[in-house]
């Protein structure tokens, strides 16, 4: 039976691929390019992490601290796998759309769960390996000669660690599913838990890397007491250091809890699945309803959609939260940050930088750097990019309601801007008081992040009108893994990096930073105008072809 269920999952995947084949060469090419881009981003993340471990690995090998190195890296890898899989566990195990269908068939719940847990394990493995493979590679690069037995001692336990993340994910997912069934607006619960996990993870990551860094630099003495307290991580560290007994311990400590969780959830699967549908009923009390204009009604509808889905907020609007966090952090640690930036950027081949420091050598640098950083943050906000796809099967409303297609699309753009622009303007204003600079730079600090928000909002909308996907099973497919989201976020980031490169390589002698940012802002405005013009003409026409989905 398990084979049949796994085959079913494979068939689901294959049917999607077959559907794509029928779309034509252009669509296939764009899908292919998207897959390549996804792969490149994965590699980019892995490479960035490799560089961190590459710095640490060599001195730690010298100090013969194998178990500490791997023990601490496993904590980070485990955290990443957990964050990546906890909500997937909730949606794929307890809230899967085909639960009722499968439970009505002569299939044991344990088999249904096992087939899904395999796919969760693969996801957790992918997340974990962003961290663990670079850590391992950095280690084996520096530790010569290469021995197969040492590699096996690292490789085998590494395959088992994600199981622990799946186990914890199942328990957390179960708790969340139970809690959600008693909470009216479960998106807020989801956002809250995610924020705690995310900030907890970043705190843990910074603590572990700084501790390892300090140890590698000979500044600190780590006794391993902290690590010993986290027994599975300690065992993993020992296993990677070549202790076969610990390899066995890792296998046992990861598989036994997973099997227990599997048996437990199988036992109560019927109860969990049915209980999650039982939300608290609220009886309607008649009252006078507010009246809005059609355009405002469309905007209100967009806002309600955004805040009804925790993963939509978390994946598409996290940058809005990060901007004030960054501003507050800057206000508190202003002196330290400026000092670090001076050191980091001292190598840049611009006149006087090394001598006087980056922020004081060139006029307006501080303001421009903050403007660029806020622009970077703006690229992480992708509210419009999945918004049309999220209409799904309800897209027929856009065809039947007496509103123009452009109003329908612009409501989405408007929400994006209403969510971002006020926050970014406030943050820019705060920085005006903290940093020196000319009036031109001050105006640019206000305008350029706003312009970047406008550009990203319009780019996301245009991309989604060109590449919508209405036949999704889970909304996460649009929010997390769709091409418009990816292209929009990466495109904005790439544009900023490219602009910086072009300036440093060719324009630094001709233009000062303020002039260059002014040109970039005008360019952003021009591109935005072009995107807007297409959206209200070609975009509207294109939308009219989607109503009968």
């Amino acid at each position: 039976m398990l084979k049949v269920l796994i085959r079913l999952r494979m068939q689901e995947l294959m049917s999607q691929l077959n559907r794509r084949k029928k779309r034509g060469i252009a669509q296939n090419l764009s899908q292919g390019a998207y897959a390549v881009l996804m792969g490149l981003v994965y590699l980019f993340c892995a490479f960035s992490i490799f560089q961190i471990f590459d710095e640490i690995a060599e001195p730690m090998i010298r100090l013969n601290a194998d178990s500490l190195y791997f023990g601490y890296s496993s904590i980070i890898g485990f955290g990443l796998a957990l964050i990546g899989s906890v909500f997937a566990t909730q949606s794929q195990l307890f809230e899967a759309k085909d639960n009722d269908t499968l439970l009505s068939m002569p299939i044991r719940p344990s088999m249904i769960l096992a087939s899904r847990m395999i796919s969760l394990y693969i996801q957790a493995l992918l997340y974990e390996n962003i961290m663990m493979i670079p850590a391992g590679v950095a280690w084996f690069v520096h530790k010569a000669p290469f021995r197969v037995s040492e590699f096996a001692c690292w490789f085998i336990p590494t395959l088992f660690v994600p199981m622990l993340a799946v186990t914890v994910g199942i328990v957390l997912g179960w708790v969340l599913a139970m809690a959600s069934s008693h909470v009216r607006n479960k998106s807020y619960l989801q956002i809250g838990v995610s924020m705690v996990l995310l900030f907890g993870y970043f705190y843990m990551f910074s603590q572990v890397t700084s501790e390892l860094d300090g140890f590698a630099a000979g500044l600190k003495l780590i006794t391993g007491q902290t690590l010993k307290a986290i027994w599975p991580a300690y065992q993993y560290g020992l296993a990677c250091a070549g202790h076969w007994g610990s390899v066995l311990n890792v296998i046992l400590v990861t598989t036994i809890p997973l099997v227990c969780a599997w048996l437990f959830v199988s036992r109560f699967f019927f109860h969990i699945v049915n209980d999650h549908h039982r939300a608290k009923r609220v009886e309607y009390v008649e009252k006078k309803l507010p009246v809005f204009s059609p355009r405002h009604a469309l905007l209100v509808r967009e806002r309600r959609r955004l805040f009804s889905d925790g993963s939509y907020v978390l994946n598409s609007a996290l940058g809005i939260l990060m901007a004030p966090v960054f501003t507050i952090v800057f206000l508190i640690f202003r002196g330290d940050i400026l000092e670090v930036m001076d050191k980091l950027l001292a190598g840049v081949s611009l006149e006087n930088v090394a001598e006087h420091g980056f922020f004081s050598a060139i006029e307006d640098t501080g303001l421009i750097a903050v403007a660029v950083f806020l622009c970077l943050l703006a690229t992480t906000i992708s509210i419009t990019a999945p918004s049309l796809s999220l209409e799904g099967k309800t897209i027929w409303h856009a065809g039947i309601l007496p509103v123009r297609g452009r109003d329908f699309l612009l409501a989405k753009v408007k929400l994006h801007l209403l969510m971002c622009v006020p926050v970014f303007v406030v943050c820019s204003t705060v920085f005006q008081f903290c940093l020196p600079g000319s009036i031109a730079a001050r105006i640019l600090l206000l305008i350029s992040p706003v312009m970047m928000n406008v550009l990203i909002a319009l780019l996301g909308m245009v991309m989604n009108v060109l590449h919508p996907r209405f036949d999704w099973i889970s909304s996460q497919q649009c929010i997390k893994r769709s091409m418009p989201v990816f292209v929009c976020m990466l495109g904005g980031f790439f544009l900023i990096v490219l602009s910086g490169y072009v300036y440093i390589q060719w324009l630094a002698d001709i233009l000062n930073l303020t002039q260059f940012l002014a040109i970039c802002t005008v360019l952003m405005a021009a591109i935005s105008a072009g995107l807007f013009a297409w959206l209200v003409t070609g975009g509207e026409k294109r939308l009219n072809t989607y109503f009968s989905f």
Partner: protein
Amino acid sequence: MLHIEHLTKKYGDVAVVDDLSLHIEPGKLCAFIGHNGAGKTTTIKSCCGILQFDQGTITIDGLSVKDQPMEVKKRIAYIPDNPDLYEFLSGIQYLQFIADVYQVPGGVRDERIHRYAETFQLTKDLAQRISEYSHGMKQKLVMIAALIHEPKLIFMDEPFVGLDPIASHALKKEMRSFCDQGGTIFFSTHVLEVAEKLCDQVVIIRKGRLAASGSMDEVRGTSSLEDVFLELEGEHTDA
């Protein structure tokens, strides 16, 4: 009220609706009958402006669906066969959204929501999220939404599917009353008994082409609607 002239809609090379012409007068309750895949939903969606058609003209209340879509949409309502609604809204939020888009004045909307929610016994559930509604409750909600701006013409695609007997009875009564007050309804159905008892007019479609059209008495003559329908299907099968 509804004039369809030589409507043709193709998917690739296949004509799903082929040179279809029909007229429905104001105040008529018209059933649209045909086998599965006959082109009923395609015709209805074309009339509503959801689907772009290849040839022909559709005019509603003297306005062209192709040339004046906004004006047409203000005068019509559409009830789909599968009520895919905004699940992130509550029932009352959905109705409010529809009322806002159709610009139904404040006091009027409150009165209509109260009246139709009572008719379909949905008042107490209006605060619930639509995601928590059953199929039948969604059907009821979409019907209230269709009636809220008092359209001149309502298109319904299989409106009785998923309704409980009480709601089904209430809907039939509401449909009749709507037409008696001058409104027009064009609805597809497979329930021939309901069509026969309820409707003034009937249109039968087969493989995208008009098979029969006229008043109920004209079409069925002395036999039942079911006999006529089966006969039409049988004739073509034999041919």
